[in-house]
């Protein structure tokens, strides 16, 4: 097990919310986030609240520039909240840490000077695992992602899809409290993307990890998610949270089409900034 750094005293510990369910893992409460641009404060996320239960896969979707990535980076601890609170397992997310492993969209998120095995094993070693132990665990997770035969390759010898597989294996191998995925399949071709979605579903089911997944694709949100949080244009709030049933995950089914139409209409209510989604929605 990877132990999240020991619970420190006051500042990271949030005040327990009275309405918080006991199995709530991630709690985003009245989150407001913005950037300083040329001396003025531009608000990307106005007031977003939602909870994620342990073991759930939650999708964050919204028009381009709606601050879904910003929100993920804040949960990861890379950005600061302007207002509100975000807690993961009851602790505020003030700094990045391996308890919230992130998979980025960029292919160059692997260390070029380490081979595939070491890209996964090294973070484990740095989190208190012995070398043999770390290697063994890395192998196990790489196998789950179908990478057993590429262990000694260097990242530049891998295709984009394989790089993302390694990054996913690395994040899962850390056995984090929760996984944050920032459009990890955004730069992949459609076929590879579909394959990786299936693989992610399989490994997520097998490990039972809680996942927050940012995407701009309605299809991806339906295929992967248990619930979909739809954000509005910036400064964004939650427009609606949509439950995805098992029937809706069958591509082409009546249920699937109706959820897709519903999500599409939620996204396009503002009528701008959603060109990519329009294309996907109408095809």
């Amino acid at each position: 097990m990877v132990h999240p750094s020991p619970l420190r005293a006051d500042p990271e510990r949030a005040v327990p919310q009275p309405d918080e369910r006991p199995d709530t893992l991630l709690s985003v409460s009245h989150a407001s986030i913005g950037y300083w641009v040329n001396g003025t404060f531009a608000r990307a996320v106005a007031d977003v609240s939602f909870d994620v239960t342990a073991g759930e896969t939650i999708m964050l979707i919204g028009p381009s520039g709606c601050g879904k990535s910003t929100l993920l980076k804040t949960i990861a601890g890379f950005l600061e909240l302007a207002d509100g609170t975000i807690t993961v397992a009851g602790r505020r997310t003030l700094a990045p840490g391996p308890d919230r492993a992130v998979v980025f969209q960029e292919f160059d998120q692997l260390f070029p000077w380490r081979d595939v095995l070491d890209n996964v094993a090294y973070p484990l070693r740095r989190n208190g695992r012995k070398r043999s132990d770390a290697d063994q665990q890395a192998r196990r997770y790489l196998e789950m992602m179908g990478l057993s035969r590429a262990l000694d390759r260097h990242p530049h010898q891998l295709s984009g899809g394989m790089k993302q597989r390694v990054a996913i294996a690395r994040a899962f191998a850390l056995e984090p409290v929760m996984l944050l995925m920032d459009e990890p399949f955004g730069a992949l071709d459609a076929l590879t993307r579909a394959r990786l979605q299936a693989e992610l579903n399989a490994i997520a089911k097998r490990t039972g990890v809680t996942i927050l997944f940012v995407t701009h694709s309605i299809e991806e949100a339906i295929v992967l998610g248990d619930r979909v949080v739809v954000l509005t244009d910036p400064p964004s709030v939650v427009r609606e949270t949509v439950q995805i049933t098992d029937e809706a995950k069958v591509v082409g089914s009546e249920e699937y089409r109706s959820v897709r139409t519903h999500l599409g209409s939620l996204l396009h209510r503002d009528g701008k900034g959603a060109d990519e989604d329009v294309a996907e929605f109408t095809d």
Partner: protein
Amino acid sequence: MSLSSPTEQSTITRTEGDVPAPPSADAAPPRSVRDWRWGAMPVWLRRVLVVVLLLTGWQLYVTISGVNPLLFSSPADVGRALVAGFQNGELLRATGTTMRVLLLGMLFGSLIAVVLTTLAVWTRFGEDVLVVFSSMLNPLPSIAVLPLAILWFGLSETALVFVVANAVIWPIAINVNTGFRTANRTIIAVGRNIGLKRWRMISEVLFPAALPHTISGVKTAWAFGWRTIVASELVFGVAGGGGGLGYFINNSRYYLDIPDVFAGLVTIAVIGLLIDMVFILIERRTVVRWGMKT
């Protein structure tokens, strides 16, 4: 644009037509045809041929022009001087002295450069110090501090090491710093995400990420150091035990032993060539293997 494009196209087609098929053995047609064109030969052979050409031209010039041997030596004479110099140990000792000072200077210089750049990523103050110092001192020919070095350290090897260290700090520091500044943001974010703190972040993420820049910095530093040490020795003469290559060259001129002057120069050139090969090897085993250099 549209007018010029047909021309461009035809140029491209012609160039493509000129490129010979890969002359590898397995791809060869039934009867093996040797391709004697220059581009088809292996790299090492081409390089050796260039050297042979140079030596031949040199020898021909000396033989035909009948130039005064007190001004210019033939490659044959230089070869004899080289062999003699290495046999009686004089040239070997001079080379050893120069290399020792150079390596010591490189060692101290790069240590200081690493400390400076590390401080520069840690603190804003460190960055300011590095920027101001490197922009002031990098353009300064470090041979210019030799008089001061002699004043401070006397006619000792320390003075030479000091001057060389001065020459190598800045190219290394500037390049490593550029490497740090341009290191991939995503990789750094990953480093933070997996819980790396300051020191490990620098040594295990930033330094390897900056390695391509670091190697080119050390290459430049090496060239600077080489020039500085030889120039210093020319001015300096004998320090402690014996003189280096610069001294050897100057002393040989003093005794009108012109082949020895050339032998000293050739030694410098050959060492430069060898060091360059070492750098190529290092690059092959690191940044090229990792796909960080194309």
